[in-house]
């Protein structure tokens, strides 16, 4: 093994994901500690342009028609090849629909250890350590990176995407892919999300509704608060899965990332899949009857109160404050 740290760059429809930059930000101190360079893996068809602001020392660029859109199988073959040739210290992948599809298969195929749900990787003297978040964020697990090329899937943790970006383009090394004929998995087409009337990512005031709302008709309570504040409704996964709100209003891992002025979370536990979607909100308020809910670790203000009592009372007072 050399000391290099590889990062899989994720991109969809011409855009590099925030997670990719976050992984570059996480990888930099690691590469420094292990005395190697930070290397980005960029796979695709005609996407060299995406390499321009990657905060890496070097980009391994692999081009092939079979890589035009993400395919777990194609990516698996290419990355396996790159790892076997390059022998890096660690490979960072996103705990995402892209990274998580290949991390496990790589681990099994190459017989390399895999650590997932990492939120923090750091050096302690000569040892590289990881911290993973499990049980919905309620427990953190810490350990040393195994002494072998280690595959790691990452969640954002405290890292900031900006720290993984660069003003100058890194060196791009065109690398030939292995045989990508006869693939069993092929991308057919994209289906765009339902066009809603509202793009929640652009709204300054968001009222987020979670499982705690219990029934569809109770969403009315949140609607009235949203109206009083001049904001829009959004939701966590359970609400959208029930069909009570469209997928366009989903905040979180499979939905949108939002950075509103005010984020008011009602009846949301704050599991990582949802928390990931909340970028920096200037004012983050959470209401949940469970004092131990993880949401209170990321919100700025909280109340362990019953939303069915509090929200209507609050809506009234807001109307008074505005009207009176």
């Amino acid at each position, binding site marked *: 093994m050399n000391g290099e740290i590889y990062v899989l760059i994720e991109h969809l429809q011409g855009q590099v994901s925030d997670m990719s930059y976050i992984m570059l930000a996480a990888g930099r101190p690691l590469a420094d500690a292990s005395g190697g360079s930070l290397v980005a893996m960029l796979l695709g068809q005609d996407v060299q342009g995406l390499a321009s602001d990657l905060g890496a020392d070097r980009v391994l660029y692999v081009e092939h028609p079979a890589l035009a859109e993400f395919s777990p199988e194609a990516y698996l073959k290419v990355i396996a090849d790159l790892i076997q040739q390059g022998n890096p210290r660690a490979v960072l992948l996103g705990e995402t629909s892209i990274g998580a599809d290949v991390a496990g298969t790589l681990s099994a195929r190459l017989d390399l250890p*895999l650590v997932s749900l990492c939120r923090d990787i750091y050096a302690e003297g000569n040892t590289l350590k990881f911290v993973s978040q499990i049980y919905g964020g309620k427990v953190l697990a810490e350990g040393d990176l195994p002494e072998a090329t280690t595959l790691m899937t990452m969640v954002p943790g405290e890292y900031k995407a900006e720290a993984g970006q660069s003003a100058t383009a890194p060196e791009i090394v065109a690398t030939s892919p292995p045989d990508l004929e006869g693939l069993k998995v092929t991308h057919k087409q994209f289906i765009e999300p339902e066009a809603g009337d509202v793009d929640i990512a652009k709204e300054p005031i968001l009222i987020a509704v979670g499982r705690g709302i219990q029934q569809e008709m109770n969403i009315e309570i949140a609607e009235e608060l949203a109206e009083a504040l001049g904001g829009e409704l959004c939701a966590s996964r359970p609400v959208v899965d029930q069909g009570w709100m469209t997928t366009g209003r989903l905040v979180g891992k499979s939905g949108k990332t939002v950075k509103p002025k005010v984020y008011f979370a009602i009846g949301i536990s704050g599991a990582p899949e949802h928390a990931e979607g909340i970028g920096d909100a200037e004012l983050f308020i959470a209401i949940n009857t469970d004092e131990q809910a993880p949401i209170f670790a990321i919100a700025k203000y909280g109340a362990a109160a019953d939303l069915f009592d509090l929200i209507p009372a609050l809506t009234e007072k807001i109307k008074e404050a505005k009207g009176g």
Partner: protein
Amino acid sequence: MDIVVVVKLVPDLVEEIEITGDGKTVDTTFMRLIINEPDDHALEQAIILKEREGGEVTVIGPGVEDIDGVLFTAAAKGTDRQIKLTGDFDVEVNNHALARAFANVVREAQPDLILTGVQAHNDMDGALGPLMAEYLEMPYIGYVSGVVMEGETCNVRKEYPGGLIGEMQVNLPAVLGIQSAESPPRYVAVSKVRQAMKTVTLDEQTSSDLDRKGGPAVSRMFQPESGERAEMIEGDIDNIAEKLVEILRTADAI
């Protein structure tokens, strides 16, 4: 068409998770184990496919506490065969070990399609699905929320961030990591489950020694510091509402 569903049981987060005295692992004394929610969706999707296409559904689970109830419930919902894999399982057995053990059983069943939940909240060494797929030498697609069979292939809807869906095609046999079933898992009356307990026999198979290689070694488990918590507003409903109005006003939201 034959489908295999592989399920895992995970700690129920309704109970508080506690760490053992030595700080290395979770305390399983009062821990309740429940079916991993995405696995429940995988089960539902399998039954929906069976209802639509015909065929058989086999469900496989690890021989941990509470597994019998899960398997009988699956039978009551409509699975045809229920396999309990007995072995030295504990709560912390990693997915590499489970994947190797399950792969042996699945290989024998020779299914057309294997469904499992895309992730579980105790996946410290990656999710079960991709590992199993590789040990079975089958293709894998994860984050699937829709499955349509088309003869020797299957069309899936793969979820990307922002609500974007990728429609992908995969040759069978394949492993799919299910995010959510086409419709939420169905209800099954307790009387049906009890009847299953009387009429259905679970197929017990022993696994060979579990091979945990591939997972990380955890030196310490701990709960996140409550230091960085939100400022909690106390008082009765009126007090809290008033203080919130103040906070909103200060932030110029009102």
